């Protein structure tokens, strides 16, 4: 084990509602939804109609721009409804799951180590598992014809209340291992893993056979140390024209199942977290599971917000929403829509702030029941040096944001737009005194760079 990479800048938001280490199986909801909107830039072209019978692993639609990228049904059943939005955009494909066992499309069982790179690619594309492999920059589904300079898997999640990856992986170690082997084949030997440095490490080097030690990197420090983008930055930064791929460990497990079980099995462990949850814990749930089915009877407070993902990067889920494709976590926190009398003037012992302007800093160990209040109004940039404290990258965040706002592509590139994703600057948005929508600006910048760069 090499010397750990020490991430010094960052911040662990001390929020209540971490998941307890117990797992309950959730029964399938009466309806399962697949949302093409989970995939940025994908233009869905349907392969099924209402009334069709589908198997688990059968393609539902493909990407019009890249027809070999297909999106499969996580379960077997009958297509119940195609929900469309404005301009007939497809929002959801709703499937009525089989009452009895799930019927799968079957694929040959094989050891990925014995397959060539092309064979692995083909198997993944055919089964629709390819879309678990994503690329930086731009966080899109990887392009099978690209040769990435590396594939990165961050084996821990440092986000607030994030699920414990080592706990999740522990249930299916062989599948995880098989998935990594497949990725190793794909990467041509450039597979990099990011682990939590001892003593907090859940997974250790011995969990990864066949991966050279110099490709196993250990990270110390607060969030965003677990973000794959931060890890890439410290291991092998992305330059213009370069592409790296990344996969979430839970998705690695799903890839492994494809090779070891010969089927696309899309159930995953989900951490239900947040202070509005009665008993935060893990559930085994199906991708596309109805959110209301996951939450039913498990919430403390009706006046709360359900977030798919964590409080920094997740998206707000409506009551009728389905579990998104890449999500491993649901967070429920109280809504903070109560005005507070002279709130900016009070000592604020129960207010979390990175600054020490509230007296809560006297209690460094306390966890907080954070709500969704904005705590102020949007202003022009005033404070300086705030973002730098929580962005462990060799990047000047405010200058990057200003270059984005000015739509100055050359400057964006010079300041490192290709290295960042929204999630990497989420903490900047959290700490911002001027309440600027940092992630939105970054997203605009990335989209602009993707189209113009």
């Amino acid at each position: 084990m090499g010397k750990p990479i020490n991430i010094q800048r960052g911040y662990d938001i001390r929020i209540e509602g971490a998941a307890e280490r117990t797992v309950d199986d959730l029964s399938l909801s009466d309806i399962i939804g697949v949302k093409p909107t989970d995939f940025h830039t994908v233009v869905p072209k349907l392969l099924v109609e209402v009334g069709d019978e589908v198997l688990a692993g059968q393609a539902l639609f493909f990407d019009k721009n890249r027809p070999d990228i297909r999106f499969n049904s996580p379960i077997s059943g009958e297509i119940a409804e195609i929900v469309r939005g404005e301009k007939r955009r497809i929002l959801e494909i709703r499937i009525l799951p089989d009452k009895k066992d799930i019927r799968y499309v079957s694929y040959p069982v094989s050891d990925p180590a014995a397959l060539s790179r092309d064979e692995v690619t083909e198997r993944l594309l055919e089964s629709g598992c390819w879309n678990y492999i994503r690329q930086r920059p731009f966080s899109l589904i990887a392009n099978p014809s690209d040769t990435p300079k590396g594939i990165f898997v961050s084996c821990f999640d440092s986000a607030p209340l994030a699920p414990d990856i080592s706990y999740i992986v522990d249930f299916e170690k062989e599948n995880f291992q098989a998935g990594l082997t497949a990725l190793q084949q794909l990467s041509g030997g450039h597979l990099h893993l990011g682990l939590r440095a001892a003593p907090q490490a859940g997974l250790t080097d011995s969990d990864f056979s066949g991966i050279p030690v110099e490709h196993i990197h250990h990270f110390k420090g607060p969030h965003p140390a677990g973000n794959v983008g931060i890890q890439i930055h410290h291991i092998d930064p992305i330059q213009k024209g370069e592409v790296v791929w990344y996969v979430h460990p839970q998705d690695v497990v799903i890839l492994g199942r494809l090779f070891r079980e010969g089927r696309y099995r899309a159930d995953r462990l989900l951490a239900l977290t947040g202070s509005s949850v009665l008993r935060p814990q893990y559930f085994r749930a199906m991708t596309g599971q109805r959110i209301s089915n996951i939450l039913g009877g498990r919430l403390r407070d009706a006046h709360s917000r359900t977030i798919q993902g964590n409080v920094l990067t997740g998206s707000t889920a409506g009551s009728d929403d389905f579990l998104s494709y890449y999500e491993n976590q649901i967070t429920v926190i109280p809504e903070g829509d109560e005005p507070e009398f002279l709130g900016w003037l009070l000592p604020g012992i129960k207010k979390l702030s990175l600054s020490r302007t509230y007296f809560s800093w006297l209690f460094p160990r306390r966890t907080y029941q954070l709500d969704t209040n904005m705590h102020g109004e949007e202003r022009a940039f005033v404070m300086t040096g705030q973002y730098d404290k929580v962005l462990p990258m060799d990047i000047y965040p405010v200058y990057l944001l200003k270059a984005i706002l000015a739509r100055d592509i050359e400057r964006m590139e010079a300041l490192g737009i290709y290295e960042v994703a929204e999630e990497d600057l989420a903490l900047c948005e959290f700490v911002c005194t001027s309440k600027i929508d940092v992630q939105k600006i970054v997203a605009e910048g990335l989209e602009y760079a993707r189209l113009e760069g």
Partner: protein
Amino acid sequence: MKFLRRIVDTVKPHFSKGGKFEKLHPAFDALETFLFVPATTTKEGVHVRDAIDLKRTMVTVIIALIPTVIFGMWNTGYQHHLAYGMEVSIMENFMFGFWKVLPIIIVSYAVGLGVEFIFAITKGHQISEGYLVTGLLIPLTLPVTIPLWMVGLAAIFCTLIGKEIFGGTGMNFMNPALLARIFLFFAFPAYMSGDIWTDLSPEAGQAIVDAYSGATNLVTFDADQTKLPSAANMFWGFEQGSIGETSVAACLIGAFILVATGIGSWQIIFSCFAGAWLMGVLLNVLAPADMPTHAMHTPAYYHWLMGGFAFGAVYMATDPVSAAQTETGKWIYGLLIGAFTVILRVFNPAYPEGVMLSILLMNVFASLIDHIVVERHIKRRLKKVSSE
């Protein structure tokens, strides 16, 4: 508080779109958000936010300024009674100063906020909190004898030329409060320098004592640096000067609050002090040996204690909007402020208070410093690529 909330909710519709006083919405909004942190929730992006906002930031700076306000009030009374050779209690000194200083503060706030409100209403934008601090900084940089109409004029100048023409708080490139002071300094020199530092309003049956001199230590040291008051007196602030600037001790309390809360940049404060000291030492070395009274012989740390150096370094140079914004830039910016202050003080007797001019000068150069730092950063990033 429910009662207050009910009132606000009842009148709110009149100020909203389509209401009777729709135009006055920015003013209403400012008052409402002053009373209540709005119920606004996060929409996209992060779902939870740090509890800090600009109001909290500004109120923290005001708290950090309170020691200088209190000491300044007391010192106003103390200097006044000293000039008349009267011995009075601490409270009497304070109350004398209190009634002299309070009107200046009120005029500064009333006029400045008035201009801000008018601007916000005509332009239809929100009222920013920046003036909460600026409005207090202006009085603290002025002599207590300043006519109130000049305070008002300075407040107008500072809000209009210092901020609003650039687009309001966050957009200005010079420290607005210092701009107000420099405006008065050049427009009304007779009221901003000379024998104006002590309030000499007549005391029945008392005459000004012979020992009284209206000269501040900045004037004294230019003539003969050996005649300076003791370092302790200058540190605690028992001397003449602008209302808030005399006590280095009070400024250091403020500096502690700013740095501990994370609002003020310790790099800027530290590098200002370092810059002044280094330049002071350099001048000591170069000073003509045959002229022991020459200002170049002034002990380097005296520059920390004289005039408004500490006040400027702690409260003015750290204004994040007009200071350098990069970490490296902050060091350069601070060092240069300190160094220039000492140069101006020693070599240019026409402008005894060098700190004001050097902060404003460096405000102008701050963007350039940052530009150089960022360009170097970009070059370094590029080099990393080619070396791989």
